[in-house]
């Protein structure tokens, strides 16, 4: 039997907690929320506790945090229209080194490319921005993308190449690539019938998982197979829709890049784990996923985000409108 067991509840935010993200080494969990605080949680003697609290950078809700691929930088974005870049020094302390301005209103998400070369941000102003840092902690805007027609909710980068994915209140998912002089939208994935709240890649970059206000989770497959360098030309296709599991908006999904499990969470206060039915998988058939485990009342209010630890794949973190952060231990079904 698979199971998801609570390891620890963490309390430190005074208001709703919006986002949780593990650093690449899996040793620090960063969380942020409406109290404008960013808290860094670390494990000591088997117990997780708040080690660092970053304050005074943002005036309003901190919506999302993101770690750079090396773990040296942390980016935070806020409803105060700004993005803040934090740098970790030799002592492990974090200093705010840059504030990125330009969005017209609430910044909803930030994400670093796998190469660390680009930082992407998106906002209620309907735009996606791509930034780069060349020297002296000076960030320049490389592109402002107007493809979405509504609030852009979340961003993620491919783990294998510089491809950015965004999802929006306009019900679509969009893929962006650098065409040499500017970034352009190379593909739009339609299928969800309401706001797409989150999107994430699998380990290979050939599959995407998305979740929506339409209460479904969709799996998208890159056509042309693995290793097909001709990205975008062949397109992406929805190969699986998981409905009937969440009965309210699904706010977040995260695809475990080590063990392939998909975690989802939403307004029904639950956390659910899905596994692919590898037994029935063959190249001629569409993949099939099944619910592996569900925690119906994972939090007492909306669960806003879930995040798998990249190094310890059994650890899952979640955060909620109830203000708490929870760390869970996932046990896969014995095969």
């Amino acid at each position, binding site marked *: 039997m698979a199971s998801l067991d609570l390891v620890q509840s963490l309390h430190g935010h005074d208001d709703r907690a919006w986002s949780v993200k593990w650093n690449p080494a899996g040793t620090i969990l960063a969380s942020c929320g409406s109290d404008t605080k960013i808290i860094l949680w670390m494990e000591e003697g088997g117990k997780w506790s708040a080690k660092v609290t970053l304050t005074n950078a943002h005036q309003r809700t901190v919506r999302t945090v993101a770690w750079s691929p090396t773990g040296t930088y942390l980016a935070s974005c806020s409803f105060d229209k700004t993005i803040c870049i934090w740098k970790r020094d030799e002592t492990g302390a974090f200093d705010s080194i840059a504030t990125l301005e330009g969005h017209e209103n609430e910044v909803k998400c930030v994400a670093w490319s796998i190469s660390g070369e680009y930082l992407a941000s998106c906002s209620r102003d309907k735009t996606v921005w791509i930034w780069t840092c060349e020297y002296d902690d000076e960030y320049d805007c490389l*592109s402002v993308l107007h493809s979405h027609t509504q609030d852009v909710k979340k961003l993620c980068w491919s783990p294998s190449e510089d491809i950015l994915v965004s999802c929006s209140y306009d019900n679509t998912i969009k893929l962006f690539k650098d065409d040499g002089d*500017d970034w352009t939208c190379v593909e739009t994935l339609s299928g969800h019938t309401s706001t797409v709240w989150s999107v994430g890649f699998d380990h290979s970059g050939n599959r995407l998982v998305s979740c929506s206000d339409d209460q479904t989770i969709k799996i998208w497959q890159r056509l042309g197979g693995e290793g097909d360098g001709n990205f975008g030309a062949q397109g992406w296709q929805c190969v699986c829709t998981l409905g009937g599991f969440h009965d309210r908006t699904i706010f977040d999904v995260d695809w475990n890049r080590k063990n392939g499990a998909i975690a989802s969470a939403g307004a029904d206060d639950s956390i659910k784990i899905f596994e692919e039915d590898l037994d029935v998988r063959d190249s001629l058939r569409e993949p099939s996923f099944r619910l592996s485990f569900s925690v119906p009342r994972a939090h007492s209010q909306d669960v806003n985000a879930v995040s798998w630890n990249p190094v310890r794949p059994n650890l899952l973190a979640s955060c909620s409108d109830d203000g708490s952060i929870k760390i869970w231990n996932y046990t896969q079904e014995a095969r």
Partner: protein
Amino acid sequence: MDGFSGTLRLTDLNDFMAPAQECIKPVTINRIPEKGRSIKITASGDYSEVDAKGQEKKLEKAAITLSDCLACSGCVTSAETVLIQQQSVDELLRVIRENLEVPADQRRIIVASVSLQSVASLARRYRLTMRQCQQKVSGYLRSLGVDRIYDLSAASALALTESQREFVDRARRNDPGSLPMLASACPGWICYAEKTHGSWVLPYINTTKSPQQIQGALIKKYLSRADHQNPGKYYHATLMMCYDKKLEASREDFYDDVLRSREVDCVVTSLEMEQMLEKKGVLLDQVCSSDFDLLPGLSTEFYNSGGGAGGYLENILRHAARELFQYEVGPVEYKTIRNQDFRETTVTINGELKLYFAAAYGFRNIQNIVQKLKRSKCPYGFVEIMACPSACLNGGGQIRAPDAAEAKVWLQDVQELFDSLEKTDAGSNIPWLDGLYRTLRDDPSTEPSKLLHTQYHSLENKGTALNIKW
């Protein structure tokens, strides 16, 4: 909304306003308070007022004008319909039609000023040379009932000369806020700067009016004087490369209260011109040719060197090198920074960096300039800022390639057409320009420092707490 530059589109310039971007402009409606009345919504969705006697009266709709929108910081402007009513081909045609219906002595003089970028766009569309296209456009406008047709020679020459002088003044003054000087010809950029960044960025912007508005001032103040006519006698339309020019023409700064007249009454874009030709089934190449008129005192045409954005960077660079360092700049060489729309150039004399200019087109590059300036890390003396990628030849009002895949080749063709005209350096002696300046200075009402300059207004959104929801 596609006509506007991307910079403006970003700033909530949309027919559809998201919940947090509802129009917050208070509207005054004259009504007499009276008891015992109620409001009824009719089947057609109109609102009627029913008084105590049961009499129905249709209620006036609250109307927001373009000027209201421009003076408000709630959003950049509300709906495209506002623009369409006041600045359109239909409006131009209506004015011309009505003008022909009144007795000859009461008729207004209909003037059209045609931008070179629009000529290049139409020339590409109809496969004409620049010269042919100018003559065909002129011939067509005359056939509609336009009385005078001018190019922007004088306005461009004046805009460049005034910008050159202003730059040298600023460089000599060199107090905080004087440099870098930022170009002012692009209305998309000006609107964005005023509404989004406001007071701190405005002092850096060149106070020289854009060629369109200088042309407007010349028509209403200079031409009218030469003609011994009242400025109100003229109806002035422009054919421009840019939808945002409609916003520029509507600015209060360019409305003369005393004369009750706008410098530019109506802006028509290249694209709207094409649509009008298509609608009427007119083949431009088969229209009778006619030459442009020349403003009084002008002996030749002037086409600016230095590109489709107006040539500000190159002309100011040459003039500043000459005035400040007694140095003649050769062909200007650019270094591309990161993308084609962000280029730098320098003047180095005896190993010492003397001038460091940049051209930054498109919203992403404007961002970097503005943010660097905000952090006092902008190293440039002058920045030719334009809202559209590839600047004005690619303006939001230009005719697009029929197939989006050919957009780049199409733009190259337009560029080549534009470049085919012989260009003049604004610093070289243009005899009629000196004469024009002398005439302008002779009359206090056309004093160049007033006639050719403008000011900017901070419209920062202060009431955020009131209108932001999420």
